[in-house]
């Protein structure tokens, strides 16, 4: 295999004496879509925060196509092409949808032109109809979608999506598939998806990692991982609960 898109080596994070995760090592291949799952409190969101350098790692190294990104600032990491999206709705509330999209391009250092596919994507996601409305006035689902679209418009090399489906209605979740498809096929970027929705992980991620208690409990092809007894016992109750929570 050629060079990994994202290579994580012995990454640890602790707050005070409390380890959130310890000695995590895994790779993300170019073009790969990786699922990261695990019960609540497994340290998934913290992992995204540390990988994006929003939080500083306690130890370990993260490389993006061979280049060390550990120790850089949060914006500098994004500029290198390692971009994250947020679990909760994250938009510029006082700006219009159009202006939000402009800012995404501009802040990422991208030219103002966007491709046909991107424009189509906006229509498909339902953002085309509300192009000139203020983001804050949009329903929750559309705000969340807008946030995800913005991280795609930054044209990252590696996109980390933190619970992209959380807070979306079941019918709205199809939007995540479209976005992942766009990022993967049009932008040709590698994607890491942190999610509770198992159906979504099964649909989109050929390979998955299971985190539990700050360690990798299992990894491999998604169907295999999900059927491992240890994963089921550690995770199943949580997963059911999570599914209950959304409906």
């Amino acid at each position, binding site marked *: 295999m050629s060079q990994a898109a994202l290579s994580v080596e012995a990454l640890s994070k602790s707050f005070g004496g409390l380890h959130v995760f310890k000695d995590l090592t895994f790779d993300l291949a170019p073009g790969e879509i990786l699922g990261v799952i695990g019960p609540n409190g497994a340290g998934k969101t913290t992992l995204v925060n540390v990988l*994006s350098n*929003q939080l500083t790692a306690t130890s370990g190294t993260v490389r993006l196509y061979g280049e060390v990104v550990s120790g850089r*600032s*949060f*914006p*500098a990491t*994004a*500029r290198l092409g390692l*971009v*994250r*999206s*947020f679990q909760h709705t*994250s*938009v*510029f*509330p*006082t*700006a219009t949808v*159009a*202006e939000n*999209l*402009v*800012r*995404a*391009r*501009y*802040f*990422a*250092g991208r030219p*103002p*032109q*966007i*491709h*046909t*596919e*991107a*424009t189509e994507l906006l229509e498909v996601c*339902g953002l085309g*109809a*509300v192009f000139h*409305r203020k983001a804050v*006035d*949009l*329903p*929750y*689902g*559309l705000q969340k979608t807008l*946030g995800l679209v*913005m*991280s795609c418009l*930054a*044209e990252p090399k590696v996109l980390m999506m933190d619970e992209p489906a959380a*807070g*979306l*209605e079941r019918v*709205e979740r199809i939007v995540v598939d479209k976005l992942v498809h766009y990022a993967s096929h*049009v*932008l*040709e970027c590698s994607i890491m998806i942190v999610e509770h929705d198992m159906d979504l992980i099964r649909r989109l991620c050929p390979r998955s990692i299971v985190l539990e208690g700050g360690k990798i409990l299992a990894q491999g092809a998604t169907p295999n991982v999900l059927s491992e007894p240890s994963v089921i016992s550690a995770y199943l109750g949580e997963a059911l609960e999570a599914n209950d929570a*959304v409906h």
Partner: protein
Amino acid sequence: MKKDMPYSVLQRERQFSGSDRVTLVALLLAAALPLLTSNILVQSVASQALIGFCGALAVHLMLRLGLLNFSVPGFMAVGGYAAAIAAEYGVQDLFALLGIAFSAPVVLAIPIGWIVLRLKGVYFVLVTYLLTEIVQLVIVETPSLTGGTNGLIGFPPTTFFGTELISGPAVYYTCYAAAIVALFVALWSTRSYGDIYDSQAHNETLAQSLGLDTARYKAQAFPVSAGVAGLGGFALVQLLITAHPLSFTAASSVNYIAYVLIGGAASLLGALLGTVVLVTAITQFSWSGEYSLGLFGLLLIFSVLFMRDGVVGVFTKIAHTIRGRNQLAYPATQGDPT
């Protein structure tokens, strides 16, 4: 990546907004004030409003970034004293003095900004307040340079192409020059970086996640705000013909903040309207008496609770009502939040 023809272009909005235009036109028209009336009182109040406007702009510029700035009187003092001291050393030219009054605070604010801008929200508020207190103490402790508690009096008058600016209208135009420079600086700053500032004010994390180096823009906005305040300080010193520590007390920072909040924090026009309304109210129709502070307090409470977008917000609402526009004009969208 596919190299299709671009389907659409997402261009940054960099035009003046309507309210910016109104602000600029209003200030340009204010140049004619001494021609319309020789009433010295009107000129004096207008001069104070122009000075207050500089202070309000300095507050506004940081508020654009979501930061409430209490250091305005401190930097006004730096600008005002720098120009007064320069005048004592023989620099009398208006343009040179404006330059000094602007750049002295800028130079000072660059290293201070490095410290202060790592602070968030409330820490920033409190530390900028302390900055003004520190400037006060430094003035008091350095009588040989600043005249200490007595202030500086008797520095030579400012000149405009060799003409001494000492008549009433000339002093008005000195204040006017400071205000117009301050407005142009503010317009440049908001026009060039308005979207960046707004993004930082409302969702700094998102801006950073996309790759925006927000620290850089903050570090840039703070000295600009300081420079704008310095221009106001220069004008105030020219109006009083004295650089006195009592002109720049930490308590007065509240006034400039009130101008902005009561006028409307979202636009330059808000800063202008708020200043004009409050300066006129305070100096002229002095709701004076022992109640004045309490009334000022009530005004603050009222505007924070019921006039969130200030005077400008009220006008906008009225205008919208008259035009019959309302929220339903937007296309309806499907889906509800969970």
